[in-house]
């Protein structure tokens, strides 16, 4: 029975099958009318990638959704409905799995402050799902739903092996750890005491993230290169990310220098994260800080320079995969739980 580890991030969704397949998609859902759907599908049996029909309702998803007028994203518990979360879940199921599966287990992550909505997540996901994507017709049940805190996913990815073991050779086994999960819109924290004891009082979310960096960067970039960007519509988010990483924006065959703009935009997030560390008790109360979440890739080097008095460890050594650290860690944690249960049951 396949497992889906699903991080329903505010900026983008990350998903993992617990084995070797993973992916991400921009967080965007655009409901379509029947006529818009017919235009998309035309005479084909299935829609193209990026579209889904769920029980007579039609949607464009992710990057494809940006072609349509997007409504304001629901907030709070309103996100965790069948019509919103459920549709996103169905779409990512089709991204990872073929349509020959009948039952899926869902492991859904959430920000610490959304613990109150865990039952809403369960209700939004469980049950029978019939939908159509570019891969064909799906008819399956989500049989079980487990939830977990995203920063703890990052913690588990650092601490556990793929087999779900915490080895005595792990150098952080006896450390007091602060986990910083830097996402698109929020930075979440969790403190874990030596021996794996989670400090529940430490779990919190702060509104700051990578999206703020991209917004500042884009504004400064357009301001500096007013002539070049005159009349240009939206800049694709991935082009902004690339420009920040490279230090120049590839504009046709021109390279628009912007390393200084990138540094200054990243500094705003670095400063916010330093405030988050102070609010969590300050570096003096921890032995090491784990960085997880896609936004951590932006600040890893600047924050190490700014705060040299503590080690910052990336939850995922491959910086391109940092955004997946929480779902990778969720898989390791539930593997560990299954082992413990199997041994207990003899």
């Amino acid at each position, binding site marked *: 029975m396949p497992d889906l580890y699903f991080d329903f991030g505010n900026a983008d969704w990350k998903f993992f099958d617990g084995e*070797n397949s993973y992916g991400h998609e921009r967080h965007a859902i655009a409901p379509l009318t029947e006529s818009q759907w017919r235009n998309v599908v035309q005479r084909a049996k299935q829609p193209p990638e990026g579209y889904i029909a769920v029980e007579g309702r039609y949607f464009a998803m992710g990057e494809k959704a940006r072609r349509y007028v997007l409504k304001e994203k629901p907030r709070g518990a309103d996100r965790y409905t069948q019509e919103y979360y459920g549709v996103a879940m169905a779409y990512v199921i089709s991204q990872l799995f073929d349509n020959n599966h009948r039952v899926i287990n869902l492991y859904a992550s959430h920000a610490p402050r959304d613990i109150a909505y865990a039952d809403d997540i369960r209700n939004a996901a469980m049950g029978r799902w019939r939908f159509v994507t570019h891969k064909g017709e799906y008819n399956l049940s989500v049989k079980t739903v487990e939830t977990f805190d995203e920063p703890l996913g990052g913690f588990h990815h650092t601490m556990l092996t793929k087999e779900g*073991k915490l080895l005595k050779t792990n150098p952080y086994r006896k450390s007091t750890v602060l986990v910083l999960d830097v996402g698109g819109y929020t930075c979440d924290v969790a403190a*874990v005491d030596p*021996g*794996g*004891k*989670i400090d*529940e009082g430490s779990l919190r979310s702060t509104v700051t993230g990578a999206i703020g960096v991209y917004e500042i960067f884009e504004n400064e970039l357009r301001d500096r290169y007013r002539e070049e960007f005159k009349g240009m519509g939206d800049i694709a988010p991935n082009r902004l990310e690339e420009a920040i990483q490279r230090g120049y924006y590839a504009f046709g065959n021109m390279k628009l220098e912007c390393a200084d703009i990138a540094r200054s935009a990243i500094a705003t997030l670095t400063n916010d994260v330093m405030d988050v560390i102070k609010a969590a008790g300050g570096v003096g109360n921890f032995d090491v800080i784990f960085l997880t979440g896609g936004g951590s890739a932006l600040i890893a080097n600047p924050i190490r320079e700014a705060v040299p008095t503590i080690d910052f460890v990336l939850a995922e050594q491959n910086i391109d995969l940092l955004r997946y650290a929480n779902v990778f860690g969720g898989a390791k944690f539930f593997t560990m*739980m299954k082992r413990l249960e199997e*041994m207990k049951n003899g």
Partner: protein
Amino acid sequence: MAKEGISRSFRLHPSDDKERQAIEIIEAWEEKGYSIRDIITSAILRSAGFEPDMFKTGNERLTPALLEAILTDFGKELIQTIRENGGVPSTPQNKPKPAPFDDEDEDLEAMRNLVKGHSARSAKK
């Protein structure tokens, strides 16, 4: 033996230490001009006691660890494919025995604390 040959696919994941090592070594062989087919075929032959040409060059980079990583993944993928095609029922007696917890390398107490923490969070839902 299937006249048409067999086709399998799998992905080695860089987040796993063994698989990352396997990826690096495979890429090194590919730089020398060997295809992935050559590498896996030769590794399997070697495991059966044959000495394929690629290992006679004196290159010592196909270590037992890489061989184990390649064959383990190949084996898992093969079993999964057979199951999906109805060949081997996935019945309880076929389930691999769980790894014992008297493994002195594991910090069992810390693992239990992590599970307790998760359960405590679950109680808040």
